[in-house]
């Protein structure tokens, strides 16, 4: 039955978001032959949806900023579970990556003196996010795409990788189907870069698209890579909550960066009620000071709406639980109040937040220059991911690299807004560079034909269920509801154990997922195949969460609501054992370099 087309490349990149595109450009530039595969059309990856901006300590909007402050902010935001070397490289290299985008044609918003403008964002001490209105991700992906198509790599759009292949211990390529006609393709490669993005589709309420099924996480895990920090999911505090059809769609933090405030049903600015100790010295204690910060007063401290996302999300949950929520179970995000402060307030809002204005006008029937938005937490980003070497981005599987959201380490327990777009290009570039170097020293691997047959058979299984088949969409919905309820923003021992059991049943159902027998562009079939990945990733999340008996960053455990110092010394790691079962362990955090420790202490003052 084996019938597939074979392609050979030195470097294969899986994923065409910011990370994958940047990696492909770099590897191609190093003289290696490069193939790039992605599930959607070019330019439609998740990166296109990013709104607020890209963090880089360029110091254009505040000359006090430099890499060391960015580094300290990232570590504090990540509650010190970060890979500190990655945090250092990221802070140091991000400005160059922004300038590079400009040199490739990106048109960022400008300062008065004609430089790249930077905006406020949660957890960043200074104005640090290079941006284009509220469509920064579009600018980034289009720039990389338009530059990339002239760099000589070959693009395979609407191809989905179903499994990675190995030659002994080292990576050997990937096996994929093409969406249009369902035909199979073998990609042989000396090195493989995974840049597949996030896992939000494990949950019902999410800002992620259908693509966010954690494929890269699951592929790498099954190929023997180590996963880290999978308990840490970012629940973004402000997703839309009404109408139901848009529930979860993101409302950029840029709204708060431009002065938006959070209010409960009593009109109270509840974020002033609970400011964590680590942040009191840099948070405003009254509304006037908060506004002065927004308009650039260097003496003023940040308003509490710009505390880190994990904290803001939990405060919103508290308000709703205690009965002070909005009519549809969220709270109010009010940007129209700035009209009291700025006489051209309405125009300012439309200029700075054009997509948000349209999104609410067209999808919610709300004019944000006049009315408040209803918002609540939405599953947004996964801090955890494939464990990689800080410099080279290689996993423990020789020749297998990872970059972008699917890689773990940089963000620790919580990611700061804007640190993802910069992550993509900083580490996308590094992955491309080192994967090319690695490939240059290797011969073409050998592929095991038997293994391919096995993978093919597995992929065609949804066409062969007779009678007892289940609708893959229903299984997916049930998984998402279960994870939302049991492993969501507020976790308990009881719920997590329940989730672990429930996953066993869902796996059994997934093995019976069935599809109409037509391989042309068939979403039922595609969804059936995604289930394996969603289930593996969900299990990683639950197993990691259950053993972290404390609350930290994106992981809030209701039975252990405090942070525990001892838990701050290790990262969770997940690996696959010989018999295919999942194993969880604790990995000590290596001692931080002294100079970096001093930077952290300096910034705590």
């Amino acid at each position: 039955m084996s019938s597939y087309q074979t392609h050979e490349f030195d470097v294969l990149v899986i994923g065409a978001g910011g990370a994958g595109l940047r990696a492909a450009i770099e590897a191609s530039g190093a003289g290696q032959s490069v193939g790039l595969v992605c599930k959607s059309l070019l330019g439609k990856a998740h990166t296109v949806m990013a709104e607020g901006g890209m963090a880089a300590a360029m110091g254009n909007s505040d000359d006090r900023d430099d890499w060391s402050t960015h580094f300290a902010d990232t570590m504090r935001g990540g509650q010190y579970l970060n890979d500190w070397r990655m945090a250092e490289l990221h802070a140091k290299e991000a400005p160059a990556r922004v300038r590079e985008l400009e040199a490739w044609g990106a048109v960022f918003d400008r300062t008065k003196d004609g430089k790249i403008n930077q905006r406020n964002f949660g957890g960043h001490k200074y104005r640090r996010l290079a941006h284009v209105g509220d469509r920064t991700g579009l600018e980034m992906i289009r720039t990389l795409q338009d530059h990339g198509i002239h760099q000589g790599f070959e693009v395979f759009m609407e191809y989905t990788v179903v499994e990675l292949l190995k030659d002994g211990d080292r990576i050997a390529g990937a096996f994929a189907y093409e969406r249009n006609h369902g035909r199979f393709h073998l990609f042989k490669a000396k090195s493989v870069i995974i840049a597949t993005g996030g896992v939000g589709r494990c949950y019902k309420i999410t800002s992620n698209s259908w693509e966010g099924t954690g494929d890269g996480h699951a592929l790498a895990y099954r190929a023997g890579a180590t996963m880290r920090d999978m308990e840490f999911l970012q629940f973004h505090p402000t997703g839309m909550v009404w109408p139901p059809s848009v529930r979860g769609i993101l409302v950029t933090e840029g709204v708060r960066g431009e002065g938006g405030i959070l209010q409960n049903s009593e009109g109270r600015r509840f974020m002033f009620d609970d400011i964590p100790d680590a942040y009191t010295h840099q948070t405003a204690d009254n509304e006037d000071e908060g506004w002065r910060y927004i308009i650039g007063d260097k003496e003023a401290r940040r308003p509490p709406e710009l505390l880190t996302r994990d904290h803001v999300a939990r405060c919103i949950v508290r308000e709703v639980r205690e009965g002070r929520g909005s009519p549809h179970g969220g709270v109010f995000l009010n940007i129209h109040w700035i009209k009291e402060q700025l006489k051209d307030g309405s125009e300012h809002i439309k200029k700075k937040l054009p997509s948000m204005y349209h999104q609410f006008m067209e999808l919610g029937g709300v004019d944000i220059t006049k009315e408040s938005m209803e918002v609540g937490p939405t599953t947004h980003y996964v801090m955890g991911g494939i464990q990689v070497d800080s410099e080279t981005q290689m996993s423990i599987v020789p020749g297998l690299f990872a970059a972008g959201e699917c890689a773990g380490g940089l963000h620790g327990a919580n990611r700061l807004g804007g640190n993802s777009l910069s992550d993509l290009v900083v580490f996308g570039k590094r992955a491309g560079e080192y994967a090319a170097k690695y490939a240059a020293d290797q011969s073409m691997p050998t592929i095991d034909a038997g293994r391919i047959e096995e993978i093919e058979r597995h992929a065609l299984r949804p066409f062969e269920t007779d009678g007892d088949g289940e609708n893959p969409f229903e299984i997916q919905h049930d998984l998402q509801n279960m994870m939302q309820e049991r492993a969501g923003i507020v976790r308990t021992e009881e719920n997590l154990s329940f989730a672990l059991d429930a996953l066993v049943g869902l796996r059994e159902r997934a093995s019976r997922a069935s599809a109409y027998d037509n391989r042309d562009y068939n979403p039922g079939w595609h969804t059936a195949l995604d289930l394996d990945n969603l289930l593996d990733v969900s299990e990683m999340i639950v197993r990691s969460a259950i053993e972290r008996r404390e609350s930290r960053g994106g992981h809030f455990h209701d039975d252990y609501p405090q942070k525990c110092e001892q838990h701050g010394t290790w990262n969770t790691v997940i690996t696959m054992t010989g018999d295919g079962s999942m194993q969880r362990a604790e990995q000590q955090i290596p001692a931080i370099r002294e100079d970096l420790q001093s930077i952290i202490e300096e910034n705590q003052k």
Partner: protein
Amino acid sequence: MTTATFRIWRGTGNEGSWEEYPVEISEGMVVLDAIHAIQTEHANDLAVRWNCKAGKCGSCSAEINGNPRLMCMTRMETIDTSQPVTVEPLRAFPRVRDLVTDVSVNFRMKKSVTPFTPRKPDAADGTWRMKQEDVDRVQEFRKCIECFLCQDVCHVLRDHHKHDEFIGPRHFVYNAALEMHPLDVADRTSDLKKRDGIGYCNITKCCTAVCPEHIKITDNAIIPLKERVVDEFYDPLTRLFRIFMPKKQEPAATPEEIGKVIDG
């Protein structure tokens, strides 16, 4: 809750037929939700593209009651549901299956355009300076989400199938973004005239009417490009109301100079 009937074109390639499905309509629902409901309840092989569900990625283009639209941004409240609601694939591109068409020609068209070519860096710190007012227009063009609705509606592609001689409104917008970029020094006028077929456009403005990003494709992109073509090929002195001046001929930055910009 009300129920609407959806008439959807189903089939592979050009072989197919219209199928009807009932969908329950709830508050705030958009057409893409209805398609997903049909997928879940009746036809899990119904082919459709989508990603962001918020008008940001340009994946979910289709013709709804004959109008080229983004399905995720078309609210059911704006549609008359006393009649069946028809949803069909874009007409200007070959059909793959159901609502999915082969839009790859657009990617080839784009690749043929001379890419961004910046001038030499000229600010003291080795980079460039650009004023916000000088990039406003380019930023309008760069809002394009590549939904290809403008390509779909343009008669030159839709009715006359000139895909080999005419790059279409999307790529005029792309050209305009490059030509009006304050740093760009390449000249694309000859290509626009000879290869890209800008002369075929007779300014019907249908493209502008469907653009979900409200880009003024005809007025702000195509007409200025046409003027530039006319200036270059005919009589430069007769044009009195130029919207933008011909570019200065300047040398482009070398790869080494770009390297210095990046390293700072």
